[in-house]
């Protein structure tokens, strides 16, 4: 485990030289045009694939990760040594069945697990971009993913899916490349980031920036990292991913390693200890500047704004099938926000399913063991596959 500081500082080298995922590098002949007006070139995308692409190249499912996720959706995560972020969803015989579908998951641009981001070398200066990295948007992320699909020779996705920020990409895909998406399954997301969510993100960013080790965003030059600030940002954000009920069930007011209150500022309560742990493990695997850029990209997301303020216009004439999923306990991306998407899709007579699932887990429910979620995903994907003429048969001889 790269727990010591020097290993953490080398996150960029580690990310750029990973052996456990695939890379595609686009040279100066294929610059990525960004919404902010700048271009990114050269451009690297780090990605994982699971399963096999069929001869017709019709069984590709693009899985988009959330804010602090990465390309390691299934299998073992190389940094944490733990399972990837969607272990119950992706695999042989699982709802996103790798015996049947070719699953692609790419680290978003601006990320810190191998795709071009603030830790990458700026060709103009020869040093890390740091805070000189251009501000990116959801559209930019999706544009980069489309370049990856071109590289893989996949014209049309069977499905694009993801939760939270991944759901935003699943929506942006349909708006940007309607012909390339047969089905889209946005989960626990919204067509725009709400004021409250922007506010939470700003708290996190200011925590990072207030850390003196952030050093104006150039901490990597001084071999430092704003770990305290990033940990606080993660702690605050983590609370928004859960729910009152989930926290109560898990911790209540239980004390941590003590029988009585300590009358001090140690972690008296289990929930305090838990959050501190969440903060300290997060900084081992995530770059602070990436956190700033990716939260900003989510804050900028407002799909309707690109279409005269009318969300339905983003989907006008769409042939894509949709399945929108929300969770009762999610107060960060509540059902109402998801339902807005459904109403816009109804307004253009799109083929849409929508289900609100009852959970206690809060926003993180999409990552948890929710059998109804698995049934829904499996059902929607299989029916989409049937419509595209992809067989039900599972290849023999492959077990988890």
């Amino acid at each position, binding site marked *: 485990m790269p727990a010591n500081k020097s290993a953490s500082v080398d996150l960029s080298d580690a990310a750029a030289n990973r052996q456990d995922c695939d890379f595609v590098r686009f040279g100066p002949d294929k610059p990525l045009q960004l919404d902010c007006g700048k271009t990114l070139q050269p451009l690297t995308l780090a990605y994982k694939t699971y399963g096999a692409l069929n001869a017709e190249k019709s069984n590709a499912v693009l899985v988009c990760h959330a804010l602090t996720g990465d390309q390691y959706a299934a299998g073992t995560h190389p940094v944490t040594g733990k399972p990837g972020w969607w272990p119950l969803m992706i695999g042989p015989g699982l709802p996103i069945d790798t015996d049947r579908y070719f699953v692609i998951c790419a680290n978003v641009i601006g990320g810190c697990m191998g795709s071009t981001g603030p830790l990458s070398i700026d060709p103009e200066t020869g040093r890390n971009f740091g805070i000189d990295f251009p501000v990116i948007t959801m559209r930019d992320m999706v544009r980069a993913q489309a370049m990856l699909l071109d590289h893989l020779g996949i014209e049309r996705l069977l499905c694009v899916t993801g939760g939270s920020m991944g759901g935003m990409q699943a929506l942006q895909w349909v708006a940007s490349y309607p012909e390339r998406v047969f089905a889209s399954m946005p989960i626990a997301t919204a067509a725009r980031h709400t004021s409250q969510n922007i506010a939470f993100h700003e708290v996190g960013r200011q925590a990072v920036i207030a850390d003196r080790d952030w050093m104006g965003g150039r901490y990597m030059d001084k071999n430092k990292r704003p770990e305290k600030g990033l940990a606080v940002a993660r702690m605050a954000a983590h609370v928004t991913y859960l729910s009152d009920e989930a926290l109560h069930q898990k911790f209540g007011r239980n004390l941590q390693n003590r029988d009585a209150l300590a009358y001090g500022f140690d972690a008296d309560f289990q929930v305090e200890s838990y959050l501190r742990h969440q903060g300290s493990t997060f900084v081992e695997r995530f770059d602070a500047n990436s956190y700033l850029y990716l939260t900003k990209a989510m804050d900028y997301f407002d799909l309707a704004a690109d279409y005269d303020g009318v969300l339905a216009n983003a989907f006008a004439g769409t042939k894509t*099938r949709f*399945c929108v999923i929300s969770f009762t306990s999610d107060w960060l991306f509540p059902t109402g926000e998801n339902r807005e998407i*459904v*109403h816009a899709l*109804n*307004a*253009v*007579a799109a*083929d*849409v*399913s*929508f*289900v*609100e*699932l*009852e959970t206690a887990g809060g926003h993180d429910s999409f990552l948890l063991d929710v059998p*109804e979620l698995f*049934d*829904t995903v*499996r*059902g*929607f994907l*299989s*029916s989409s596959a*049937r419509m595209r003429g992809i067989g039900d048969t599972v290849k023999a001889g492959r077990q988890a």
Partner: protein
Amino acid sequence: MTRARASRIDHQIIAEIVEPGSRVLDVGCGDGALLALLAAQRDVAGRGIEISRAGVNECVAGGLSVVQGDADSDLVNYPDRSFDYVVLSQTIQATRRPRHVLGELLRIGHNAIVSLPNFGHWRARLGIALKGRMPVTRTLPNAWYDTPNIHLCTISDFVHLCEEMNVTIIRKLALNARGERINLDRKARLANLFGEQAVFLLKR
């Protein structure tokens, strides 16, 4: 499941009415039985709206395109004439604003198909007349205090509403307790007495 058995008859009739290959929206689609039937028998591109979470889960897991929503409030989002048929099967009596809902069906669909339990059936009448109690029958199986059916009507009541709203009734037929059809044009009064349920094909 008496309700499922009773409603299967009207599902069959609706499947006969719907033209093959048409676009159908089933409002209050339950577990998706009618949508599945229409897809299998009539090659229909079906969509559904269902209020119960369990119903929607079952539909979507089964590959049907169904949205969790409320007939009273969520039809407003659908554009005019976006479906060939909008079906309201055994649901109008459970809506808060049946008149509004009926108007919405005819705005969204070129045609509407409405099936309803008949509160004018002799068993219901007898229940009130002789026992002085709200009827509990096969098509209306719930006690008054926990029935979802807040706007029950008779076949005649519904025909009257259609006239009032200038809605054209293209086809109408009643079904007796054995599922046999009673011609509503020629035997309207008889149908209102012996029809356990009725199916209407409407247009505006």
